[in-house]
Structure formats: structure tokens, C-alpha cells
């Protein structure tokens, strides 16, 4: 179960600035390689897809394997084209997509 998606943006930015977008979500990222106490394999359950849109346009995308740590953190950059809202979507192995949005404040 994914929970608590977070997006961290600079307080303010100007058009043309290159900004860093930091993202974090709470998720176990179960690898599928572990066994429970009775020896039964614990099924894989990871966030495998990450899509970032700004103003409706895709600006960054990633695929994750089980080698990404629990509570996946991901930071990337973007040159600010104008005002807009970030929409970030994390999709897990159950096909559940968790979406967070954040408004970029321009100066």
C-alpha cells in the first residue's frame, strides 16, 4: 500500500530557472525474494512506475525494479517553462496509482 506521497519544490522560481523536484512516497517495496516465518514466499509488491507531469505535459518518467529502496525517493530537474502544477503518479504491482499535485509558485 502506497501512502503519504510528497512533492518538494523550491519556495518560488522564475521562468527559465532550473529547479529540483524531490519526491517521496511511503511504500514497502517488497522484493518478492523474502519468506515469512513459515517459509512461505512473500509476493512481490513494488511501485514499478513513476510519471511526472507539469501543466499536463509529461516531463519525467521512471521505471523501478525491486532494487529501489523502500519508501522510494526520487529527485529530478526541470527548466521552468511557465506557471503550472506538478502532477506525480506512482503505480504499484496491484495496478493502484497514487497521485499527488503541487503548485509551482512563480516570482
Amino acid at each position, binding site marked *: 500500500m502506497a501512502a503519504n506521497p510528497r512533492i518538494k519544490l523550491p519556495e518560488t522560481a522564475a521562468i527559465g530557472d532550473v529547479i529540483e523536484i524531490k519526491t517521496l512516497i511511503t511504500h514497502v517495496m517488497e522484493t518478492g525474494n523474502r519468506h515469512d516465518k513459515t517459509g512461505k514466499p512473500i509476493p512481490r509488491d513494488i511501485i514499478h512506475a513513476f510519471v511526472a507531469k507539469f501543466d499536463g505535459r509529461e516531463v519525467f518518467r521512471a521505471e523501478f525494479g525491486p532494487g529501489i*529502496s523502500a519508501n522510494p525517493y*526520487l529527485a529530478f530537474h526541470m527548466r521552468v517553462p511557465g506557471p503550472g502544477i506538478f502532477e506525480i503518479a506512482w503505480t504499484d504491482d496491484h495496478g493502484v496509482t497514487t497521485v499527488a499535485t503541487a503548485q509551482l509558485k512563480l516570482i
Partner: protein
Amino acid sequence: MPDPIDISILSRREFVAAGAAAAAFAPFVARAEDPAPGAPLPSQKFKDDFARITGSATPVEGKITVDLPETAENGNFVPITIVVDSPMTDTDYIKAIHLLSTENPAAHVATFHLSPVNAVARVQSRMRLAKTQDVVVLAEQSNGEMLISTTRVKVVIGGCGI
């Protein structure tokens, strides 16, 4: 910021096994370029993923800076920063950065897709390392050329649920 990793989820047996595995691989600190006798070898999964990603391209070294700890105390949680030197213009940019591990149970750790809108080819995340091994970064350029960087990380307590 992230919650601290709870290593108590490992049973005592897993913990001891992880420690023993790390100790067994401790002597192999040689670089991938000059493999010492008995050094860990890349898994078949790594070779398959590497071949799938590189295709017909022959990766060349350079332009990639990978920031990883020399020694990772906890293989469940290894911070990584990848920077590729690229102008990121419409005609010359990095299309994708692939992150691979030579000896994790799943070799392919992540792929990051970029475009000129990103302005800089820089990504930061946190990865798992099951044991001491090489972390291989492949960067795909817009002209189809492929760059490569290999970093050995010594792992004290392995991740990936071993």
C-alpha cells in the same frame, strides 16, 4: 523525509547470514577493470539486462558521474546520485539513464527517462544492494550512443531481503 529503515524486520538468522555473506565478500575490493581471482562475477540476469539495454551500441566510458558510498553500512538503503554531462538541448540530450546491479537478485534497478525540458541530466534516489558488487550506470544519448560508468560498492549488511 524518509522514515528510518527498520532493520528489526530481519530475523536473527537473516541478519547473521547477511553478515556472513558480507564478510565473505569483504576481500574483493578490486575494481571491475582488473578482476582479482575469485572476484564476484556479474549474474546472468545482469548480462541479459545489459545486452537488452545496450542492443547494438558499444558503451563508452566518460561523462557520467556517479555518487555512491565506497562502503554501504546498510544495503537496504544506499543513496545514489547520477549526473551525466550533457547540454540537454533539442539536438543533443540524454534520453535515458539505466541503473543496473551486477549481483542483486534483480539486476535492473531503475530506468529514468529524460528530455531537454529537464535541462540537466541529474537524478537522485536510494537503492538496495544485496552484497558487495558493481553498480553500472548506462546513459543513452539522443544520437543513439551509449555511455557507461561502473562503481564498486562494498556492502556490510546486504539488502534485497536476503
